[in-house]
Each structure stands twice: as structure tokens, then as C-alpha cells.
């Protein structure tokens, strides 16, 4: 149900853009105004979220990790699992961000005949997530060819590598295959297993369907419908140089792509997709475990009235002595 309603929402957005994109006066709204509003919401929203996060107090380190803490010289410390210095943290963070290391340890518990509880590895989620995110990044960088003139070297090289197999014309991009396959797997994973389906929310499906819609509309433009790429680049450059135009040759199919993207951008800061920034701010990943090596002073400490043992003993001295209990003084 949640899956169907989010699918319906994405299809409705696409259909709206497709049909409204044929009405001449609305093309400026879809091709210029909505994208500008969306990117403004994206930039302001992401900044706002990160600034709010940066204000949360982090009074001490949270060493929830499986490595041996750095202690005596003859006890081998896990420098990567339980780093005590900045280089170790940077290495742990880099592996997390680039290779999703903690997802690689994903396990699955299963109740078998017996009853026996079995733990098994579950690497497919890791593989699917990695394939999806890397494809997205490569597509994102390749798309810079629409926004930058002259096109940078790096983008051209990436384009060459991505179309390495020279299948068909226009050349098939490897990442187009991998992103669609990975997204379909990630969707299927949520739908197939009853337990995962039970904990999946509308927002989980919506993000997947939205990005799938974005990728499929791009694939449709490139390999099936064909569009005027030069006109699209004129529109894109018009947007980034603040002299927007919507050339006549830009079809409403492209406006579908653009509206799905605008939706993604505007939705991004308020959704779980903010994990893009959040991963860098995960306290269990980005803090060196030096709780016992360095003194961490509680930053919002204030004087608290205390009643130490010595004072207490002085107060009840006679009573304690009368009861025959031992005294320090």
C-alpha cells in the first residue's frame, strides 16, 4: 500500500510535468522557476540541517566499536576499529563513506527447524547499495557536461570510461545499467521479505521510486525517445548563469526529468536522504576513542552542591562513635 501510493505520487508528478510541459506559458514555470526554487530549498535546507547538527553538544566520545582500545603498550590496539587519533578516524571514516564498511558486516538472523537460530552473512544489501551510490555519483559527475562550457577533461574521461564497451549508438553507459538494476534490487528487497516490508515506510519507497523515475526518464531520453541535447545544454547553462531560457526544442519529456530532479532536491533536506551529510557527523564513527587518555570536560558544567564523606562523618561523628562503628578521624 505504502509502495503503491509512493509509486502513484511519482507517476503523478511525472505525468503532470509531461502534460503541463506542453502548455507554452507553463514551460517557464517547469523549466526555470521550479528548478530555481528547488535548488534554493536544497542549498538552504542542507546548510540549515548541518548547522543545527553542529550545535549539538558532544561532551565525550562514544566508543561503540568492536576493536581493542588503545591502552598499555603490550596490548595490541585496533587502530582502525577503535582509533585513538585523527588519522585512524579519517581512515575509518573514508572506508565507511567510500565502501560502506559497516554495511559489509550486515548479518541476518533466521529461525530454522529445531528451533535453531542461525546468523548468516547478508552481503547483497551492501553490494546493491554500493552499486547504486557509485552509479549515482558517476552519473552526477557526467551530467556536468550539460552545465559547464568548455566541458572539463575529467568529465570527458569519465564519459569515455563509462561507455567503454561501445555498445550501440548513443553509447550505452555502464552506470545506466547498474543504477537501474541496483534500484530494482533495493525495491525488491523491501517488498519481498515480510519483515522488511513491515518496517518500510512511505518515505523509503518514495525515495527509491523518485530516483528510479529520474533514472528511467533519463534512460528513455537517451536511448529511446532521443532529445535535442544541445538545446538542453542551453537551458542548463541559462539556469546556472542566471539568464534562463527555455528553447523551443526542449520537449516536455525533458521537463519530466527536470521536475523529478526538482522534487528530489526540494525533498532532500527534510528526508532520510540527508544521511549524505549525516554520515560525516556520526558520533560512533567520527570520534577517536580517547576517553581515558584525554580529559574531556563537560562543557555545560556548573557548580553543584556536594556533601563529601569527610563532612558527613564530621556531622554524625558522635552517633557513629556511639554505635561503635569505625571512623576515619
Amino acid at each position, binding site marked *: 500500500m505504502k509502495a503503491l501510493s509512493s509509486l502513484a505520487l511519482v507517476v503523478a508528478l511525472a505525468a503532470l510535468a509531461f502534460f503541463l510541459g506542453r502548455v507554452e506559458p507553463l514551460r517557464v514555470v517547469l523549466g526555470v522557476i521550479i528548478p530555481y526554487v528547488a535548488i534554493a530549498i536544497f542549498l538552504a535546507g542542507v546548510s540549515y540541517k548541518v548547522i543545527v547538527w553542529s550545535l549539538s553538544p558532544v561532551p565525550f566520545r562514544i566508543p561503540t566499536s568492536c576493536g581493542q582500545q588503545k591502552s598499555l603498550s603490550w596490548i595490541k590496539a585496533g587502530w582502525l576499529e577503535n582509533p585513538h587519533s585523527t588519522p585512524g578516524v579519517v581512515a575509518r571514516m573514508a572506508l565507511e563513506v567510500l565502501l560502506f564498511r559497516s554495511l559489509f558486516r550486515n548479518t541476518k538472523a533466521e529461525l530454522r527447524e529445531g528451533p535453531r537460530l542461525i546468523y548468516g552473512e547478508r552481503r547483497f544489501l551492501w553490494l546493491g547499495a554500493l552499486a547504486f551510490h557509485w552509479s549515482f555519483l558517476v552519473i552526477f559527475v557526467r551530467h556536468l557536461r550539460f552545465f*559547464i562550457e*568548455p566541458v572539463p577533461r575529467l*568529465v570527458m574521461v569519465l564519459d569515455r570510461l563509462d561507455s567503454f564497451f561501445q555498445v550501440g549508438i548513443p553509447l550505452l553507459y555502464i552506470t545506466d545499467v547498474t543504477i537501474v538494476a541496483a534500484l530494482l534490487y533495493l525495491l525488491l528487497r523491501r517488498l519481498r521479505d515480510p519483515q522488511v516490508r513491515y518496517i518500510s515506510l512511505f518515505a523509503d519507497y518514495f525515495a527509491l521510486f523518485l530516483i528510479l523515475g529520474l533514472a528511467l526518464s533519463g534512460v528513455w531520453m537517451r536511448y529511446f525517445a532521443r532529445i535535442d541535447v544541445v538545446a538542453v545544454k542551453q537551458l542548463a547553462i541559462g539556469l*546556472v548563469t542566471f539568464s534562463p*531560457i527555455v528553447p523551443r526544442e526542449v520537449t516536455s519529456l525533458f521537463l519530466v526529468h527536470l521536475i523529478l530532479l526538482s522534487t528530489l532536491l526540494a525533498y532532500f533536506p527534510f528526508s532520510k536522504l540527508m544521511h549524505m551529510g549525516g554520515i560525516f557527523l556520526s558520533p560512533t564513527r567520527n570520534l577517536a576513542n580517547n576517553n581515558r587518555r584525554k580529559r574531556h570536560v563537560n562543557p555545560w558544567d556548573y557548580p553543584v552542591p556536594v556533601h563529601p564523606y569527610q563532612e558527613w562523618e564530621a556531622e554524625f561523628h558522635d552517633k557513629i562513635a556511639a554505635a561503635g562503628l569505625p571512623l576515619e578521624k
Partner: protein
Amino acid sequence: MRDRGVIYTGLLVFLGIITFPMWHDWAAGTTSRGPDPVLPAQEKQCVAPLSTMRTSHMQLLMDWRDGVVRRNVHTYTAFNGRNFNMSLTGTCLTGCHTNKADFCDRCHNYAGVAVYCWDCHVDPKLARRSAK
């Protein structure tokens, strides 16, 4: 916290990367004027209507190639009844677009496509010059 400096630096780097095309195009003085390919002087009509050529000329070339090398079909009858010899260098680049650099290449550089056909097919203009 002591880490705020790092967080704000990271945020600024991210915003810089996202808005990079804006800074780049502003510094390079790029405008939304297109690549302005130079059209042939002697001919008015391409082998297919302009809008079709704009979006799908690469597919037409593939149809030509498959026709020539796989089906031994050498003549293409255009939408307006004219006949053409189906050849990339022989027809497109010799008959009309004699200036490949100012026509094909301008657009392809603009759109950032590295057309690999020229690994094998030679621009007839360059071939003629080196023959002299």
C-alpha cells in the same frame, strides 16, 4: 565544540562543489548561446528534416552503416524523394559538411561527446591535404 570549524569547512566545500558550474561559467564568461555549427552554403535541406537530424543523426548513420556493411544497400531515399549514397565521409562530409571542424566537432565539443567514428573514418579534407 572544537569540531565546528571542521563541520563548517566541510559544508562550505560541499556548497562550493554543488555551485561549481555557476562559478566556472561566470569566470569563463559562458553564455547560453549554442555552438552555432556552420551550415553548408550550397545546400538547403539535409537528408532528413532538421528536427530529426538534431536529435537522431547518430541513429541515421547507424542505419546507413548497417545497410551498407550488412545488407548491401547503398542508396537512401530521403523523405523528399532525393536519393543519397549512404556514406559518412563520402556523402555527409564530401557533399555538404565539408568543414567537419566547424560543423560536427563544434557541436560534439559543446555536448561533451567523444565521437569514436574518427578512429577509423577519415575527414576527407584532412586526407586531401596530406595527399598533396
